[in-house]
């Protein structure tokens, strides 16, 4: 039994009601539907706003972060007035402002193996708007194990991927990517970054697919992967098939319950201390400044990208981007005191591991990276 629409709702959705493929019945299906959105960031922002505007009756939001000014370049559901506010609350307020005739449930917690089944239980489908491999495999496995469609979107710089993984009708995420990249193997990981408008496109496409699934119209992206490149505005669709050896949706599954996804991916899925290389391997910014001042010779290596040096720099540092470090190892002298740094400590930790495995011992990681240096030693430069 589909829910009724009142007169205000009929007026609000009149442009939907005029489309034969939606109509009154379709709009009532939307009102009856429930969608869980994992992440209210770049992808989740447009998806949440369009699902709200379209009248999806019940929308769940999972996020555990607060709105930060560096989010606003792309996370358009949040605004400057919401800085410091919980993302799920900032997003809920915006959605209810767009459409008060919907319900928004918020889950201010990371999506984990422990809570995923509980949170997702009462939803028809899940939209994956996450930003890391462990949570993507978790979302996939929850969807496969519970028979829910997973509307997948992912972005990197100028490029996006989109698919609908529905193991009952086609391949799942693990069919396409049986294993995550080993840590540090994601090429140009260190360069990161994303064109702010890109998740707008991909997140909007995710909302489109979710609405199509609810209305049961058109051809969903099941068994297909969209590759979108904003630089040449190319959209390519490739065909995917169920992998007969898939560990979760194949005929002989070995994954039959949720696992430890951080261990599976070898990387943390949620916030953790990425600024430190571990006991004994760090040097504090103030200590580095003190040593420099007292004339102790230190080889300072900046492992960021050249464009980042335009933002902030430490005098005397040599630039060797992390990706070029393996081939430049021969230019470093293991007898020298070496200090490595990046933006906030993650890349320099990987650089340190590389040097240590090559036999270097007199090497340290600048804890917290140049951002910590700027905060503690040289506030004349910007944090980014």
């Amino acid at each position, binding site marked *: 039994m589909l829910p009724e629409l009142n007169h205000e709702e009929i007026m609000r959705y009149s442009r939907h009601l005029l489309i034969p493929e939606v109509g009154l019945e379709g709009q009532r299906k939307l009102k009856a539907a429930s969608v869980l959105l994992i*992440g209210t*960031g*770049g*992808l*989740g922002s447009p998806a949440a706003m369009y699902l709200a505007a379209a009248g999806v009756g019940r929308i769940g939001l999972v996020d555990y972060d607060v709105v930060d000014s560096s*989010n606003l370049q*792309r*996370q358009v559901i949040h605004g400057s007035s919401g800085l410091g506010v919980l993302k799920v609350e900032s997003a809920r307020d915006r959605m209810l402002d767009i459409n008060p005739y919907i319900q928004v449930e918020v889950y201010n917690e990371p999506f984990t193996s422990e809570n995923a089944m509980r949170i997702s239980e009462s939803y028809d489908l899940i939209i*994956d*708007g*996450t*930003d*890391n*491999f462990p949570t*993507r495999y978790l979302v996939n496995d929850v969807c496969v194990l519970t028979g829910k469609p997973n509307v997948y*979107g*992912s*972005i*990197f*710089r*100028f*490029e996006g*991927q989109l698919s609908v993984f529905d193991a009952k009708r086609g391949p799942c995420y693990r069919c*396409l*990517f*049986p*294993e*995550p*990249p080993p840590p540090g*193997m*994601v*090429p*140009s*990981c*260190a*360069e*990161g*970054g*994303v064109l702010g408008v890109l*998740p707008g496109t991909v997140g909007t496409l995710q909302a489109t697919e979710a609405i199509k699934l609810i209305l049961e119209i058109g051809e969903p992206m099941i068994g297909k*992967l969209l*590759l979108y*490149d904003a*630089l*040449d505005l190319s959209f*390519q*669709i*490739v*065909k*995917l*098939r169920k992998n007969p050896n898939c560990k979760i949706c194949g005929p002989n599954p070995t994954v039959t319950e949720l696992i430890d996804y951080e261990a599976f991916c070898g990387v943390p899925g949620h916030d953790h201390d*990425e*600024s430190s290389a571990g006991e004994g391997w760090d040097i504090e910014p103030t200590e580095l400044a003190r040593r420099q001042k007292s004339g102790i010779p230190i080889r300072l290596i900046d492992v960021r990208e050249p464009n980042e040096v335009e933002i902030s720099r430490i005098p005397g540092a040599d630039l060797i981007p992390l*990706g070029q470090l393996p081939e430049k190892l021969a230019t470093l002298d293991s007898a020298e005191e070496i200090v490595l740094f*990046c*933006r906030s*400590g*993650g*890349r320099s930790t990987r650089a340190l591991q590389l040097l240590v495995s090559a036999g270097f011992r007199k090497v340290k990681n600048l804890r917290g*990276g140049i951002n910590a240096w700027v905060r503690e030693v040289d506030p004349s430069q910007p944090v980014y």
Partner: protein
Amino acid sequence: MAVLRISTPLRPYINGKSEVELQGETVLEVVEDLILQYPALRPHLFSSEGKLRAFVNLFLNDQDVRNLQGMETPVKENDRLVLVPSIAGGSRRDGCFPN
């Protein structure tokens, strides 16, 4: 002559280009030509045993080569190949921990 399109995360290893023209009668030969021209790509595409890595997909036109004849799949003039690695980006860390 086939054209191979390469996804953004792998472009630094082919001098930032998005597409390269390659020679070869099979997918394997085309990929070998790619590695010959851009040796830095090898560890990102193949494991030490020489197998295509599990987080990289290779499509010939719109078909996964694993659903064709794998690396032995014949490649015709003007065929297009695309290399698709997994990307994780979405919101906070945009794909991979860029700190």
